[in-house]
């Protein structure tokens, strides 16, 4: 599904990603771990198409197309979704209006009519239930005054509504208490199918107890320096990053 080859990218002449290689197949969950400043969030931003970053070399192939040629919205239409580490507050737009617009625009790009209001509301209710989201939430302003946990839950709610093929969860666990973490992870697990894939970016093994990865990669100074199975995450938890980064 996703093939990243020798990806080099940076911001304002500072190279952050120094040759990333990664392949993600449908149905897989990949975890990307690594110390602060290793380039985890840059990688997710580059895949999603944030314009602040400049891609210097390499390619990101998504379902046979070079993602780097596409605008962020086109990437979303193809099925890329980024759960933001810091979701943006948008006062003045309700959650329901935001999601209605996103979904309608995605459907339009795919040549589909907007969902009838009744079906849309039904879908919203189902997904809200999946994430134990309370009533009244839809009419709140987008992320405004949301707690850290609510914001992250809102990200996964959008993911559930937009049904992406590739989801990148950028530190979705940060700011979540244990209960919220379980709910969010549960939601992510329920949304998993053999046709979609997930990249989980995290500092901690904690989230990976709930969203069990097929592969774990360690990112350090802009390169993936070690890959392994889920047991690698446990080892990192125990031993830290030093034993890998020093070699």
């Amino acid at each position, binding site marked *: 599904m996703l093939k990243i080859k020798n990806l080099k990218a940076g911001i304002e002449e500072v190279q952050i990603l120094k040759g990333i290689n990664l392949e993600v197949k449908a149905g897989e969950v990949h975890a990307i771990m690594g110390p602060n400043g290793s380039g985890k969030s840059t990688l997710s931003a580059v895949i*999603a*198409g*944030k*314009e602040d970053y400049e891609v210097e070399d390499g390619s990101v192939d998504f379902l046979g197309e070079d993602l780097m040629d596409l*605008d*962020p*919205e086109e*990437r*979303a*239409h193809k099925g890329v*979704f*980024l759960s*933001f580490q810091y*979701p*943006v507050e*948008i*006062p*003045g*737009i*309700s959650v*329901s*209006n*935001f999601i*209605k*617009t*996103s*979904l309608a*625009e*995605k459907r339009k*790009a795919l040549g589909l009519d907007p969902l009838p209001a009744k079906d849309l509301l039904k879908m919203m209710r189902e997904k809200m239930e999946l994430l134990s989201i309370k009533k009244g939430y839809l009419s709140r302003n*987008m992320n405004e005054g949301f707690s850290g946990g609510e914001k992250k839950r809102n990200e996964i709610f*959008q993911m559930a509504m*937009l049904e992406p093929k590739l989801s990148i969860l950028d530190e979705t666990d940060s700011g979540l208490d244990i209960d919220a973490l379980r709910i969010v992870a549960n939601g992510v697990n329920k949304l998993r199918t053999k046709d979609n894939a997930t990249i989980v970016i995290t500092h901690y093994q904690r989230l990976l107890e709930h969203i069990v990865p097929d592969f774990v990669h360690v990112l350090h100074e802009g390169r993936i320096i070690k890959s392994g199975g889920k047991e690698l995450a446990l080892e990192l938890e125990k031993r830290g990053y030093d034993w890998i980064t020093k070699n």
Partner: protein
Amino acid sequence: MGLIDNLEKYAQHQNLSKDKRVMFDSFIKKGFPTTSDEEWKYTSLKKVVKSDYNLLLEHTEIENSVINKYSLGVEDKIVFVDGNLVYSPEIKGVHISGFSDFDCRNNDVISKLNSALAKSGFTIVVEKNTVVENPIEILFFNLTKNSFSQYRNRITVGENSEIKIIENIQDLSKSSTLVNHFTHVSCNKNTKVEYNKIQNNCKDSTLIDCMNIFQKQDSVCEVNTLIFGGDFTRNNLNFEQNGTNCESNMNGISLLDGNQFADNHTFVDHKTAHCRSNEMYKGIYLGKSKGVFNGKIMVRQDAQKIDAFQSNNNLLLSDNSTIDSKPQLEIYADDVKCSHGCTIGQLDNEALFYMRSRGVGISEAKAVLTYAFASEVIENLSIPELKNLSQRLLAHKLGVDLDFSL
């Protein structure tokens, strides 16, 4: 020629009363304000004054379908065509008639001109203890080419009564026109008055609007000014509070593009204690458009325990757009709460990326964020048809096909 000549020529053939002649002469002596007048510092009438206008309005008929095309679709409509009152509804407890000559203090020379020469407009009297359930829409159509029309309107709302009005001035002549609109509103004790202005006239029209509102004890008055169209718009909105526990609310949206210009001058005169005023004006400027905001709040010495709030937020969506904003607070009482805030900015790039990452294209994302910016004013509109229209006009003007209602 020019406007002053047009006016003098017109006035010669009018049988003006002595008082009106004096008023007109004093107007001529002073002339239209220029940018050296403090109140017109950022607002130049040069282009308007240089143009020729036709003061003799033709008498034309208008098809119902045209009226319906511009109407919000509410039941009760008052319709003017070229200054003539052609339709008014029957509403229990409400007396609607055409122009009534009334004298009042004039704040400025343009109101003075209106006072001297205006011959058309509406008079609405709401009886005591009358709650008018449905909003009344007032439509002014103009079909005379290059006309200069002056309306002089009066609304008197009796004690314990409520009314909602929507006003729409529409030019159909496809030419440069000028309207000098003056409205006097008396809100008696314990009244609730809501006045909405849709200023969405065609691209060559000029509007100078003055509204003076006088409030008595326990009255609440709200004015929403929604500017989407027109070439040049100047609104003077003046509230005078003459009783305790009054509330004056004024909200506005200016969404301008091209070379459009709009100026909102507001003035709240807090003369009595225990009153409130809330003011929220949002400006969105595209192209080479220009906006002016001047919000004056006066708290007189006896007006203790006043709670006055003013905000003016502006989005400059192009490099060539301009806003001049000036809060002006004069406070002579010592136990009051007065605050004001003014912002000028652009759309947040983080929020834009956030929306785009959700599949919303760049124009649509900008439109959604712009709507979000304006939503406090739009969502506050109590008449659903008006809210809907504002949402549609905003989407249309930003060039997107989006439905903001939900």
